[in-house]
């Protein structure tokens, strides 16, 4: 515990204001923890100099695992010796980020003992992040975590910690059980999660409906988004209630339907469900009156990633509709085929979305044994540069067309 208080005039400014202050959090921790105290000092220095003071992380981790820990070292170790090591541990969160007070306290106790006492709840991928500790603390922390029933999440070229929206636990729109699937995938891919063996990272994200509350389509290599096939369920009495309470149904609901497939005559909503593109808008607007159909499942999309280095990608449709129930055999089979093809042919640091673009979606589909269908494209190709290998084979002189 540090003797005299460090001066942090810049950071002190960030204790002011109505939004909860991370500086207060660090200061609270710093009262009892030297790592947190040195973090405060180094951060103040960054604020003065407008530059970070961390070095590239080396490879650190727990025995037998290739991921789950991000190594981090200060580039001012003399001045801030307590953050000379400042590794983070990624702890695989429970699906849906549900906790009890009890388990949270136990997690805190572990981190009080072995780390900085600082956390991220949660990291962008979904892990519970323990922020900052020394290499020698990793193994003891891991031991206590596993004793409590927790394990590390992903990092490096592995399956990253899957995450999902709260789905059926708290949402009426969940078209499949996101938390069950997340738990299942996490357990099924434990080896792939802990031992990086892919060309690059692989992220799964599960959203229960097209609102996509975990932003799966933007940031997961496989995005599993709930949807339905049958008709939207309409309670016209409830629709009328919304109208009475002042909602402009014509302008704000019907007028915003992307499929232009709704009609409202002041009494009844009529939906041409064949044309409906399942966007959720009308349901979002009137949750008491409308609901997704009963024939529910999910759309599987592939390939999202951040921009480095060929530009960002959104996931695109691979399987327009699939029923998702245990034992999820069809899904696992699909994922395994993709992993195999990508692992064998992907270049180092090539995400699956980039891989698909390099080899061509058509070839990729062929390799994983999925039929091309028009649902996979916004529109067919505009350029005439087609690789017609097969045609050429078929019609060689030896075997000319009649």
């Amino acid at each position, binding site marked *: 515990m540090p003797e005299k208080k460090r001066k942090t005039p810049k950071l002190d400014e960030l204790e002011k204001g109505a*939004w*909860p202050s991370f500086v207060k959090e660090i200061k609270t921790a710093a009262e009892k923890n030297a790592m947190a105290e040195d973090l405060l000092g180094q951060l103040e220095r960054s604020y003065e100099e407008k530059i970070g003071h961390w070095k590239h992380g080396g490879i650190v981790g727990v025995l037998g695992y290739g991921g789950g820990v991000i190594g981090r070292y200060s580039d001012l170790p003399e001045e801030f010796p307590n953050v000379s090591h400042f590794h983070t541990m990624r702890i695989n969160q429970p699906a849906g980020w*549900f906790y009890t007070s009890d388990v949270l306290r136990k997690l805190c106790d572990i981190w009080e003992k072995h780390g900085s006492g600082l*956390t991220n709840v*949660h990291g962008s991928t979904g892990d519970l992040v323990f922020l900052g500790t020394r290499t020698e603390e990793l193994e003891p922390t891991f031991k206590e975590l596993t004793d409590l029933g927790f394990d590390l999440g992903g990092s490096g070229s592995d399956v990253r910690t899957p995450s999902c929206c709260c789905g059926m636990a708290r949402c009426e729109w969940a078209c499949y059980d996101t938390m069950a699937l997340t738990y299942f995938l996490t357990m099924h891919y434990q080896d792939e999660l802990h031992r990086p063996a892919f060309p690059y990272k692989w992220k799964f994200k599960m959203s229960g409906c097209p609102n996509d509350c975990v*932003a799966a389509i933007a940031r997961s290599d496989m995005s599993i988004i709930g949807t339905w096939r049958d008709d939207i369920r309409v309670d016209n009495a409830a629709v009328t209630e919304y109208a009475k309470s002042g909602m402009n149904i014509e302008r704000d609901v019907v007028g915003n339907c992307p499929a232009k497939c709704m009609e409202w005559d002041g009494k009844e909503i009529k939906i041409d469900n064949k044309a409906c593109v399942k966007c959720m808008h009308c349901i979002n607007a009137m949750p008491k009156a409308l609901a997704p159909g009963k024939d529910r499942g999910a759309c599987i999309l592939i390939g999202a990633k951040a*921009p480095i280095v060929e530009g960002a990608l959104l996931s695109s449709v691979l399987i327009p509709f699939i029923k998702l129930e245990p034992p999820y055999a069809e899904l696992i089979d699909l994922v395994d085929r993709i992993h195999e093809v990508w692992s064998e042919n992907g270049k180092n640091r090539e995400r699956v979305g980039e891989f698909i673009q390099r080899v061509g979606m058509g070839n990729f589909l062929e390799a994983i044994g999925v039929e091309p269908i028009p649902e996979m494209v916004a529109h067919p190709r505009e350029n005439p540069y087609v690789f017609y290998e097969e045609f050429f084979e078929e019609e060689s002189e030896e075997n000319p067309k009649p």
Partner: protein
Amino acid sequence: MPEVQPKQQRKTDIGPPHYEKFLPPIIKENYGRWKYHEILKPGVMVTVSESGARLYTVRAASPRLLAIDKIRAYADLADKYSNGYLRFTSRNNVEFLLSDESKVDPLIAELGALGHPVGGMANSISSIVHTQGWVHCHSAATDASGVVKSVMDELVDYFTEMKLPGKLRIALACCLNMCGAVHCSDIAILGIHRRPPRVERDKLKAMCEIPSVVSACPTAAVRPATIDGVPSVEVIEERCMFCANCYTVCPAMKLNDPLNDGVSIWVGGKVSNARTEPMFSKLAIPFLPNNPPRWPEVTEAVRNLVEVWAKNARKYERMGEWINRIGWPRFFELTGIPFQKEHIDDFKHAGLTFKRSVHLTH
């Protein structure tokens, strides 16, 4: 593959605990049977089951970077108000899961006292998804938590009230790696470098493979060179677009630079499929300086964007939907942001972003 086999008794690959352990009884009983929800007031929602059961959710702001003491304080509140059950959201807010409506207001009061405003639901601004910044990452071109705190101090009323045309999602990433996945946000704050890597030759020799550094560069700005007789690399500075991919594979290619690092602002992305398809964010402001501790230029820019949108958008219209309706020329006019060369795409798909019609207002 693990190089050393773990010891027999060491537990590994156990995965996370099963979520069921942490679900309150009301959720277990009504799992998959929810019928509808209603936002009762800012940050408070009731979800009603087919069984008639009513689950009250109270959502409070979180800085995401939490000391264990704060987590313990949350635990205490959960014990007091929600039978020990709580969760966190995909935007890092904390949610208390109550069965008893009468406990809602006392909980809100205590959260307020603790400095955690309740809100972020429905047509409001929720917490800013963000990343590590100078707190933990070697790549950061700006801080994360400090910018977020400064911006949210400015916007907190939009969190605690529900007066906006639609949802507004802000995200921050401290470098182009975009861990915050800011590329599909209504407003994105993105740390950027603007100075080509300066090669630290000794480090390079010690820590990096020259071919992999060279091949990491997407614009071929890095090429092998022998300097003072030692194999090294040189950077053709005009070709560099500051992606830092070379730095990711080799610590000797440092881009961080106090004078040139800063922040860019992006607008109009979305993720949901509601109404319109998901969209990428587009560049609004190419550069704002790093001005800690409060980044006044950034907070001002974000405030302006929020206000102009709030004033002009129609109901349900997200930032990008609004801009698509009025057109980009009008967006730049209304926000007063100057349009510059940097706004015009010159990357791979540039040609597709040019205006390829005479659909223009004059």
